[in-house]
């Protein structure tokens, strides 16, 4: 039995990356619009305007090839952008799913026609994307997909239902996983089809979250018409394409999230310094634990990006990023509310908002239990675990 790799490579920045960072940082400082409005319509407009402004400045799609409207740089540039974006008052990009997940998947698995039709409008967010994966009977067990796509000549007629579909209410396109081979089972016979959300057969119903906010939806698909030429990776190859798309969900996202969590910890530390509690042993110890968790999260994120940059990411390895993120995020806000005391804990504010929202981290994008399954199977190679 041989030992694992040590040390592993993490993402290193070159002088040109630092030059880009300085440029972006200055731009963000001058252009940060601050927190977006609460009102849904206004918020939507602000988020859209923000991505368009970033696109105008040349910062969206830094790692995309120039022929698709990108800058032809590498993942390091994208990492720099994600980190600097997280220092602004704005949340994630409105078309994050398009730019970071669907776009790269089309580049990897799709054809030139799809690239031509769909990539550029992702960048300026004229077409926002969502991901039609989960279904009422296919949550953790994604391979249990029931939505059907009946191939009819060059068309696919889709019927079924998707659930927990983030951003479906603002998306123009959906990368939808459906069963196109009648009688197929599990991972076989699936196709990843691009669906036009303006098709009359698409019905999006809000599914408010525990905080009353609307981030995700149910999507009903009734005789929705899509095209065979819009199947990413070809008919029957949906599982591989979907898995690739999920692997893109980690890397950069973790990096950006980590910076936002770092800002929250810094704010908590400042409160402790102001109130004089920073000299208490228990306070130092607890902040030390959260700091440690965040630093390891950053290290793991850099490790994943180095692996992605070298196209050498072991299957299942991003489950480590996801699991660790959920632990750190939940610990951070639980610790914050505990240290800030009843006045904060009893009221509705950013801290309690984030405490509640933190419960979603161990569920979305594959629950903790599923990540543990993936680690035991794919990283440890355990025989029969299910």
């Amino acid at each position: 039995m041989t030992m694992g790799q040590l040390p592993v490579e993490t993402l290193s920045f070159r002088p040109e990356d630092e030059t880009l960072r300085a440029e972006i940082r200055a731009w963000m400082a001058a252009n940060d619009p601050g927190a977006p409005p609460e009102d849904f319509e206004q918020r939507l407009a602000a988020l859209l305007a923000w991505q368009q402004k970033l696109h105008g400045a040349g910062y969206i799609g830094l790692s995309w090839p120039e022929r698709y409207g990108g800058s032809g740089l590498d993942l390091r540039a994208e990492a720099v952008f994600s980190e600097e974006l997280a220092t602004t008052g704005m949340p994630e990009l409105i078309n994050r799913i398009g730019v970071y997940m669907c776009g790269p998947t089309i580049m990897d698995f799709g054809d030139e026609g799809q690239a031509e039709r769909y990539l550029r409008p992702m960048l300026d967010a004229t077409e926002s994307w969502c991901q039609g994966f989960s279904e009422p009977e296919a949550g953790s067990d994604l391979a249990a997909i029931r939505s059907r796509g009946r191939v009819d000549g060059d068309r696919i007629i889709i019927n079924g239902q998707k659930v927990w579909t983030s951003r479906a209410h603002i998306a123009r396109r959906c990368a939808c996983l459906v069963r196109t081979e009648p009688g197929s089972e599990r991972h076989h016979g699936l196709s990843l089809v691009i669906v036009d959300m303006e098709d009359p057969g698409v019905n999006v119903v809000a599914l408010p979250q525990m905080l009353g906010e609307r981030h995700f939806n149910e999507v009903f698909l009734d005789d929705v018409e899509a095209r065979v030429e819009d199947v990413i990776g070809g008919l029957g190859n949906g599982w591989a394409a979907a898995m690739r798309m999920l692997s893109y969900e980690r890397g950069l996202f973790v990096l950006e999230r980590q910076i936002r969590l770092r800002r929250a910890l810094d704010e908590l530390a400042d409160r402790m310094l102001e109130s004089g509690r920073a000299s208490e042993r228990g306070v130092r110890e607890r902040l030390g634990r959260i700091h440690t968790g965040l630093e390891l999260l950053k290290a793991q994120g850099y490790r994943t990006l180095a692996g992605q940059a070298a196209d050498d990411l072991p299957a299942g390895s991003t489950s480590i990023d996801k699991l660790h993120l959920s632990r750190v995020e939940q610990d951070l806000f639980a610790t914050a509310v505990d240290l800030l005391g009843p006045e904060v804990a009893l009221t509705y504010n950013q801290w309690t908002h984030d405490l509640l929202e933190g419960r979603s981290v161990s569920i979305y994008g594959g629950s903790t239990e599923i990540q543990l399954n993936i680690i035991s199977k794919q990283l440890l190679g355990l025989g029969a675990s299910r």
Partner: protein
Amino acid sequence: MSVATPEGIDLARSLDESLGKILDTEALLEATRDDLPLPAESTATMVGLGLHGVALDEGSGGLGLPLADRVRLAAVLGRHLVPAGLRDEIFGAVPALAVLADQDGVAPLLDRLTEGELRAGVALSSRSDGAAYTLMPEGGELLVLLGPDRIELHRLEDGVELTALNGLDAGQGLSRVDATGSDPLASLAGERAARVRREYELSLACEAFGAAERTLEISAEYADQRQQFGRPISSFQAVAHLLAEMKLALETSRAGIGRIVDLDEENEADEAELELWRATLAHAVPAAARTACEGAIQVHGGIGFSWELGLHLHYRRILAVQFLLGGDSATAELVGANYLERRSR
């Protein structure tokens, strides 16, 4: 780019093989049971492996291996539960004597130490109360006392008081150190001294990592073989998830070690940032190693708790590392204090 050198990789591989032959579980169990050092011939063979130059510059007659190689070698020592005293010479005493080498009489001692003709112990003095413990090799003549930012080199015969203790990680010569009655032979304060301590601490963390990674390998293999209720226990989710938690703990630590190697090589990070990183790893890695090793014992069930299987040897070593570094709470507090201090600037 944390690229290990070909020499370092070769050395780690051959060391892994050699140590596997020298250190079998039976010998380690015997030494632990009797609280005695390993047989003299095993120790001599290990001392003769030429590892004393690992953390020493080429200019000082060492191998000049970069940090990327050193973390790997420290992990290999951990995998095989190499005697703590030998580890301390390689990663503590030799680098300490190297920075003291321009002081009177030190250079010849360093030569004899790297040749294996002289043995030395290392003690970390506690950041909070100054208490210090050493794992003194048999026949040791020197003590290197590493304070937070000060190195002192003492001759034992010059008045260093060692009180032998009944070590949990037995057979390693654990003693409490009182050097107040001894005049150091040589000493150094400041940044270079602090760096020796921090790199030594990092090597301890890597050693714990190596020991823990070994227990995970043993456990994953066992879980796929051991049958209960007519199937391998790895097919039970409760067991598989326990193993996955062990893996999670070790992989985030692995990333952390990779990160510090990269930061060290980039030369971009300021020293304060590196210092906070090393403190962070000194807290995180032993804690992760402990989680993994406790999981290993659990996965094995009754046999995991047995004397003969020997997982307790790894557990003893990992606990020793964690508490030589100050313990879980104290190391977390140090990270927090360091972070708050930076934040208040």
